[in-house]
């Protein structure tokens, strides 16, 4: 088992929470993990990414080499494209289709979707809508984690138990809402996978 994931988004969108859940689940599954984060100046509304590597053997580099990521998991469609050079052939993008527009020259969403559709079987997720259905738009990061879950190589129960661990200080309602969001993403991803 060896998987490289590029997590992408804009500062404040919650990619580090996704990383924290996967990291915790990986550790509980006795896997080796490395996960980089962006702190400081660049996180203020800027593009942020996290390199996440999980393996059952030694991992040397904290950073993923170009052309070797098994997945780009993005909470923002434009940001997913920024890291294309990292994607391995035959690997896929899993991204939210909700644009986060804080720059004047943000490209047309149709153009972004067209670029995404040019990649290998992307999983495109209406994350904000599913998150609202789960109870709060702020859980869209957990929707995205759910959408990626079938491709991470860690058991669903481990991921859900990590979500529980992480959110339990905020109360059981918040835990349940995040689990609901996770499952909605997972369901959508599984449906898309079975479609021709």
């Amino acid at each position, binding site marked *: 088992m060896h998987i490289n994931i590029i997590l992408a988004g804009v500062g404040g969108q919650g990619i580090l929470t996704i990383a924290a859940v996967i*990291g915790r689940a990986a550790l509980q599954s006795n896997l080796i993990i490395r996960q980089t984060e962006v*702190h*400081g100046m660049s996180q203020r509304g800027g593009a942020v990414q996290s390199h996440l590597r999980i393996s059952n053997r030694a991992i040397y580099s*904290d*950073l993923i080499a170009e052309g070797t990521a098994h997945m780009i998991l993005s909470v923002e469609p434009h940001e997913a494209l920024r890291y294309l050079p990292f994607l391995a052939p035959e690997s896929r993008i899993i991204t939210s289709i909700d644009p986060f527009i804080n720059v004047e020259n943000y490209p047309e969403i149709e153009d972004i979707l067209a670029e995404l559709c040019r990649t290998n079987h992307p999983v495109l997720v209406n994350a904000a809508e599913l998150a609202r259905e789960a109870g709060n738009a702020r859980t869209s990061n957990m929707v995205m984690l759910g959408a990626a879950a079938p491709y991470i190589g860690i058991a669903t129960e481990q991921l859900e138990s990590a979500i529980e661990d992480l959110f339990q200080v905020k109360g059981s309602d918040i835990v349940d809402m995040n689990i609901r969001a996770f499952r909605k993403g997972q369901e959508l991803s599984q449906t898309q996978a079975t479609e021709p």
Partner: protein
Amino acid sequence: MNKQLLLGAEAIALGALDAGISGVYAYPGTPSTEITEYIQKNSAALEQPVRSAWSANEKTAYEAALGMSYAGKRSLVCMKHVGLNVAADAFINSAITGVNGGLVVAVADDPSMHSSQNEQDSRVYGKFAMLPVLEPSSQQDLYTATREAFDLSESVKLPVLLRLTTRLAHSRAGVEPTSARIQNPLNALYAPERFVLIPQNARRQYNVLLGMQEELEKLSEQSWLNRLITGTGSIGVIAFGIAFNYTMEVRQAFSLDFQVLQIGQYPLPRKQVESLFKKCETILVAEEGYPVYEELLRGYFGADNINGRMDGSLPRAGELNADIIAKGLGLKPKAVMPVPDIVVNRPPALCKGCGHRDLYDALTTVMSSFAEHHVFSDIGCYTLGALEPFNAIHTCVDMGASITMAKGAADAGLRPAVAVIGDSTFTHSGMTGLLDAINDRSPLTVIIADNDTTAMTGGQQSSATGSRLQDICRGLGVEEEHLRTIVPLKSHLEENMTVLREEISYEGVSVVIAQRECIETAARKKRNKTAST
């Protein structure tokens, strides 16, 4: 013990706690902030207690850590690379006095300047001070090396510099801690012959330090942080610090078997390096940072069997990665998908609703009425005012330089001379510059953007905010009628512009404190309050 998922910075913190430190001293600075924050939140540290509040700057932090060591206890002092410039006087001279309780200086460098104004390499400072330097390459090694660094410090009676870079500081991995050691008892050292650095003592102590160098090199030769990964072939790599990870990644990915000498402790283990040179025809020197040891190994006249940053095999600037090392070894890069043309930059920006935005709206309008409209600024969130659409500030050099550069420009005849500095940066090293301006009666307006926190690094406690800032300015000698306070809100725009205009036109020192809480901190407080009710 159970594995914990820790940032490299946090692994240092836990290593230091388990080594029995009695205090950590630091000023926030990316990528070093999380070391101190971990200790501040750690329940065992709170129980002990381990002293951990933020210091006013890196120099005060360093000196306090040295004082704790003098008293016999173990202390950790943390900073970013440029912070060591601020603490350099204390740092260099503490190598002359030596220490009593273990003293470890954790310095996080920022190659590629993710959140910094330069990418200076702290290993140069280590050489300069002639101290042992540790540079582990993984989170687990950071934990273990930090623990052992305190023992090393006490055995050689010298401070130990622990160097890491952004990537390791901000990357998580599972770390398995060992059981914690208890704190040292109070055992102050009466040794004026060491600690009173008048020339006669300093000369003797300096000779002691020089005499230690051979011993330090011997310790490097024996250190587990310096080791040879055996292999075959005529190419060898000397991989320093985190460069070891990238080198091993390439070795694994390309199924190669070249020899690698990992360096994680300095002074450089000369014998190990010599032995690798004997076995290999070509050596790639991979350093995360400056080509400090490449330069040394090449010598003045160069050596054509050495590849590295100086001959273009590796780029001269910026952080390394596996792709760069692969290229440096002459391996063919993979064909990869390009970034689509439609992708645009998304630079960092001031938050929506941030008070600095309203301050700059007022200031820029006022300044536009002057022929010369230079604004000297400083380091913090408000530095983002340099970017579009504000273009509101025109300098940012080092902590505190806004006030002193504006003063110098005013002395040269520039009118108006305006400085913008944050609350935390002002207490870090703006106060002394303001005193200079007052003593010189320099016509200067200092705007203190007081958002009640050290915001850029994530909202740490600031040394003085609100009325304490006013008291400091009064104490330094700012005249009461030219010490003004405004609230940077859209609804106060006209009023704020009037105050700024009045003070900027005053031919003397004036201070305008723009007071409004950071919206991030305010939102966090609100969330915590809701969560706790």
